[in-house]
């Protein structure tokens, strides 16, 4: 779960990191009022779960409250990479001397939290890492000890020469690690971490991703979920216990297992089609899940055909087939549906489906080819 900038800043502030003040506005008038309270010259920042806000025009400097109002009017309701902006953060414009990057994430190779810092902040850190790796310092945190004081110092020392800046940043890095751990985070970053002409170090942008598996034990973090900021279909999927990601194609996919779901999408493309979504219904034969999956898929107006690709495995295929048939009886679907079911008891399953009037397959290639053909036929 991604946090909004303003939410990540709340977490950072609670850990003691110096973050300039800032409030959320949902209307242009609200933005104007907040700009007045903050002294006039502010930055208006779109709060959406997407990179590239700046390039998309979602971050604007306002010289006075009237400008803040105008910017907010432009930004609120704007679409950035398919996500609608419902909130803007109003925060004072800061005088900036230098911009650095400080981030921590879970590294697969070392199986531990890993810091990345760079004096080249304010820009995409992956680009820096790729093009000028010498501008990056990395540190693996031993999970048995946590971040040690000399390690935080070693990172800060890479960013600055001035002892006061190093000292402030050492503290910020330690606080960032605490916030990372105490939020159940998989990634936390400050980009940019700025220095001001008066020699202060501050975090003026903040990102944090929460490990979904931590939410059950961190209700205060879980409460930060902003369903209004994600596509409604993904909210529905999450609430139904499904993994769903919307894509741009027209072949709706309903698969059990994440790897098979990806391979199914890829096969749709292989046969000249375009998948409308990733959807993993898991190992269950529960008709409710199938109903929820079909509701989500059919709510996408692009979808022209729907394919099921189910590998029975431990779950018996006849159970799954019965689940699908029952689900189908509960909703009306316009698009053609083709089903592939294989594994334990597949013969019984195929009979159940055929009796219920659904085209049934045992080969993954055959069902995908057919679904692509149906989608193209619908277009023609």
């Amino acid at each position: 779960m991604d946090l909004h900038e303003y939410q990540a800043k709340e977490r950072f502030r609670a850990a003691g990191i110096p973050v300039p003040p800032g409030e959320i506005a949902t209307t242009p008038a609200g933005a104007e009022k907040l700009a007045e309270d903050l002294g006039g010259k502010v930055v208006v920042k779109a709060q959406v779960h997407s990179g590239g806000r700046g390039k998309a025009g979602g971050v604007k400097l306002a010289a006075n409250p009237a400008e803040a109002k105008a910017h907010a009017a432009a930004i609120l309701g704007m679409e950035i990479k398919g996500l609608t902006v419902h909130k803007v953060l109003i925060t004072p414009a800061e005088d900036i001397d230098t911009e650095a990057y400080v981030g921590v994430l879970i590294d697969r190779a070392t199986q531990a939290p890993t810091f990345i810092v760079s004096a080249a902040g304010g820009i995409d850190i992956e680009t820096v890492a790729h093009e000028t790796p010498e501008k990056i310092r990395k540190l693996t945190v031993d999970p048995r000890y946590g971040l040690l004081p000399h390690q935080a110092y070693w990172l800060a020392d890479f960013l600055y020469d001035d002892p006061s800046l190093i000292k402030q940043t050492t503290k910020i890095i330690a606080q960032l690690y605490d916030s990372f751990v105490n939020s159940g985070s998989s990634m936390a970053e400050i980009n940019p971490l700025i220095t001001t002409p008066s020699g202060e170090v501050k975090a003026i942008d903040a990102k944090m991703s929460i490990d979904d598996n931590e939410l059950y034990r961190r209700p205060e973090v879980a409460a930060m979920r902003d369903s209004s900021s994600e596509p409604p279909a993904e909210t529905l999927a999450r609430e139904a216990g499904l993994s769903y990601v919307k894509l741009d194609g027209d072949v709706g996919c309903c698969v059990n297992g994440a790897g098979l779901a990806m391979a199914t999408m890829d096969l749709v493309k292989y046969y000249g089609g375009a998948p409308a979504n990733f959807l993993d219904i898991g190992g269950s034969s529960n008709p409710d899940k199938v109903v929820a999956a079909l509701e989500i898929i059919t709510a996408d107006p692009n979808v022209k055909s729907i394919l099921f690709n189910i590998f029975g495995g431990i779950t018996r295929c006849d159970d799954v087939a019965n689940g699908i048939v029952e689900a189908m009886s509960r909703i009306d679907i316009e698009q053609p549906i083709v089903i592939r079911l294989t594994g334990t008891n597949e013969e019984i399953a195929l009979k159940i489906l055929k009796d219920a009037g659904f085209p049934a397959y045992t080969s993954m290639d055959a069902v995908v080819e057919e679904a692509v053909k149906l989608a193209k036929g619908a277009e023609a």
Partner: protein
Amino acid sequence: MAIFTNAETKLVVQGITGRDGSFHTTQMMEYGTAVVAGVTPGKGGQSFKGPGGKSVPIFNSMDQAVAATGANASVIFVPPPFAAGAIMEAADSGVALVIAITEGVPVLDMARAHAFARDRGARVLGPNCPGLITVGGAKIGILPGSIVTPGPVGVVSRSGTLTYEAVYQLTSVGLGQTTCVGIGGDPLIGTNFIDCLEAFEADPETSAVVMIGEIGGTDEQDAAAFVKEHMSKPVVGFIAGQTAPPGRRMGHAGAIVSGAGGTAAEKMAVLEENGIPVAKRPADIVGLVREALA
């Protein structure tokens, strides 16, 4: 022979009395796995009724189970809040292999649990993995025993059902398997591709290996370099997620293209560069394996 398990494997099921634990214990016993004990705190002294009238003693803790039965492996079906603790308990009890099926374990818990298992010298497979099946030997986890058949192919995969698909296609054309291992879809897994490839290389019964990867991370790229440098046996690859958009998690917590890294295209290219033929679709795996074995 095969990898990670053998005729001496004696298994404890942690969480044996739960819904998943009890179901899969029966499945494992039916396959022939030597399930010697179960662990559920507070239910020590009871016993689990397995298939064919077999009875499995239940203990309160791993140390009791190991002391009483000489178990040397465990499989974990306990719920996510307790899974990392169960892994550390297993590692502390002295078993050499810990297979964690549980999905949804917090990744920071796993960072600690993996460190602990390393300190104790225990191999962890998973978490969030389907386990492994040594064909004709031990089945540990949730892989369906019905789809495998004996033969010379080792299979290692980050996925569950996609593995079934690949194994099913191999089996349907008579290409049997030695061991099929699901290493799991989480970001922090205890046993990775290289560990499995190394074991398959050392296993005299394995003649070729199918490696099924997916987007996210660089495990497949690292494995490819390993294959080129250290393996004499042929390896065939498949990568899922060519159509996955960047920055979105595809089901598995680890299946995400971050920025420029970890795409399927990159992985496929690196595999090919290192001499590993890559199947364009699951159905092509069979043909590539046949060529490799020819």
